[in-house]
């Protein structure tokens, strides 16, 4: 017997809904699985699909360092290096104790005693730019690829290795193209191409036999997640006149701008060092160093134990390098 239309609609509605539910539940299970995996391996969205992409493995071990779990895991800043050009006729005197540097800076003018005369020099604190914070996000790069599978014991120096990779992947007959940038990371190299299409094509091919160190090495090419510094959002300055007019007591212009433009750098004085300026051309390097060291150890000028003196005689130039002090 032909099913009655009402009953037919009902049962078909029911089965449609149940099918939907089965599909939804399956999708939910997939996503939950992906979520579990995403915690362990990063995935890339390629044409709407989450695809795992290989990242180099770094062996790490637990050495006993723990913290209360409420704190979010912080990042570590290391290998800080600041290079500051020093003008000719200047010197940098570094003391053991920052308090001594402060004392010395109380007088702007110092008279450095020589045998027959005195050198008049100026002292000032040296301020260096420090980055107060950085916000970085990563996004898949269309122009870069990650080349991985580099064998561990390769006896090639960094530059030579990058040259060989650029040579191979720069050739159209290998599926490559003009290489713009190249960088060596732990366990892989990043190549940046002028042409997006080349990068995409190389990723699709995926596997290559590349001559390195006298043998054919199987290398893998995959997409690369690049880091991008997030610039602070800055509203246009055109809004400023309106802001100034609207408030009854117009705030100081520079203060407003400081709020609108969060500083990318902050100037911080080097605690233990003083910059000596205006040194006339009367002594050569080593003598000048000795004379300054003697002067800045004298209690009469507020001085004390000197850790280092770096001089840049007039007419010359030098680059002072600063790193993270201990403690």
């Amino acid at each position, binding site marked *: 017997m032909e099913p009655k239309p009402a009953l037919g609609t009902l049962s078909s509605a029911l089965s449609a809904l149940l099918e939907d539910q089965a599909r939804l539940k399956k999708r939910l299970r997939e996503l939950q699985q992906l979520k579990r995996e995403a915690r*362990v391996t990063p995935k890339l969205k390629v044409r709407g699909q989450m695809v795992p992409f290989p*990242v180099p493995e770094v062996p790490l071990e637990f050495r006993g360092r723990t913290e209360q779990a409420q704190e979010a895991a912080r990042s*570590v800043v290391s290998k800080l290096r600041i290079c500051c*050009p020093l003008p000719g006729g200047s010197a*940098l005197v570094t003391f053991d104790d920052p308090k001594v540097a402060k004392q010395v800076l109380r007088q702007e003018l110092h008279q450095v005693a020589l045998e027959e005369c005195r050198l008049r020099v100026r002292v000032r604190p040296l301020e*260096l730019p420090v*980055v107060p914070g950085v916000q970085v996000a990563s996004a898949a790069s269309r122009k870069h690829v990650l080349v991985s599978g580099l064998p561990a014991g390769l006896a090639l120096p960094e530059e030579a290795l990058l040259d060989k990779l650029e040579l191979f992947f720069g050739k159209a007959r290998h599926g490559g193209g003009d290489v713009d940038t190249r960088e060596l*990371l732990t366990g892989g190299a990043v190549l940046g191409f002028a042409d997006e299409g080349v990068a995409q094509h190389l990723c699709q091919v995926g596997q290559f036999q590349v001559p390195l160190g006298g043998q054919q090495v199987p290398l893998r090419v995959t997409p690369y997640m690049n880091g991008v510094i*997030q610039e602070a959002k800055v509203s246009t*300055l055109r809004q400023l006149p309106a802001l100034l007019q609207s408030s009854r007591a117009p705030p100081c212009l520079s203060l407003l701008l400081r709020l609108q433009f969060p500083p990318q750098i902050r100037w911080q004085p080097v605690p233990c060092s003083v910059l000596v300026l205006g040194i006339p051309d009367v002594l050569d390097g080593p003598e000048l160093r000795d004379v300054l060291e003697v002067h800045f150890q004298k209690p009469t000028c507020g001085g004390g134990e000197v850790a280092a003196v770096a001089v840049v005689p007039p007419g010359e130039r030098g680059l002072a390098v600063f790193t993270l002090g201990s403690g």
Partner: protein
Amino acid sequence: MEPDKDNKNQVLKEQQLDEESMNDDQNEELLDEIRKENIQLQEVIQKLEAELDGATKDFQIKEDIPETQIKFSSLENPENDSQFLNISCSFQVSSQVSYELQKGQALITFEKEEVAQNVIKMGKHQVQLEGESVELTAEPVPLSTGVRFQVHVDVSKVKITVTEIPDGLGLPEDQMRDKLELGFGKSRRGGGEVESVAYDKQSRSAVVTFVEPGVADRILKKKDFPLYINQSCHRVLVSPYTERRLQKYQIFSGVSKRTVLLTGMEHVRTDEETVEDFINIHFQLGRNGGGEVEVVKCSLGQPYRAYFEE
């Protein structure tokens, strides 16, 4: 059709409709329930999808770099001229890979990889914890991905950024560019010989490059500069010109070869240190499948964040 049969059919239909309408109500309820469940499933799915979507751009690192003690290290004299045009600052940022140790779990690091792998392979271990025999399960530690990169910032000693450049003067772009060069080029007004000016009328800003390094420093002692255009003075804002870039950006996955996760101590009552000692002793013994132990840490109460290092 005959009226009788019609009637009969009609009654039959009505009866069936009645039955159906009773079932219809129930069925409608059933359908509604399923519809509701489906909607809920949809919502959970959408949330998860959004979460996973965000996970690809997950490596947002907002780092407040703490005040550090900067110390003089050495004086160099490089050949490269360009190094004298900037104060350059570089540092490395590495995210710390960690594992959140939950109540009833312990981490044990062995000196040798083979020992750790063997302990994991054995799976279950009967360990004496203060008189009580507890079954512990050994597994590899699931570690998250980390990210590492270098930040390079160059603060120019010859360039400055100029902003709040007046734009109501009716001057074409080219001419304003020249006015800027003239204004910043006069040493008696605090400027110095200008090498070039890059002017953007739309944002009312410019980058002025001087020939000599000292000029920029002098001008930047103040936040503004008196720019003279045709006898009238306009105060423009000046700030350092900086360039920031990232290098060697890499996402890596942490993998632990010598540390093992032990679970199964949720109900253990003793203090953590005692348990750590017992675990240490047990897993030192070769007959228990162990070997030389470097460190043991367990949680019997609140979780700990355990850092993994190279």
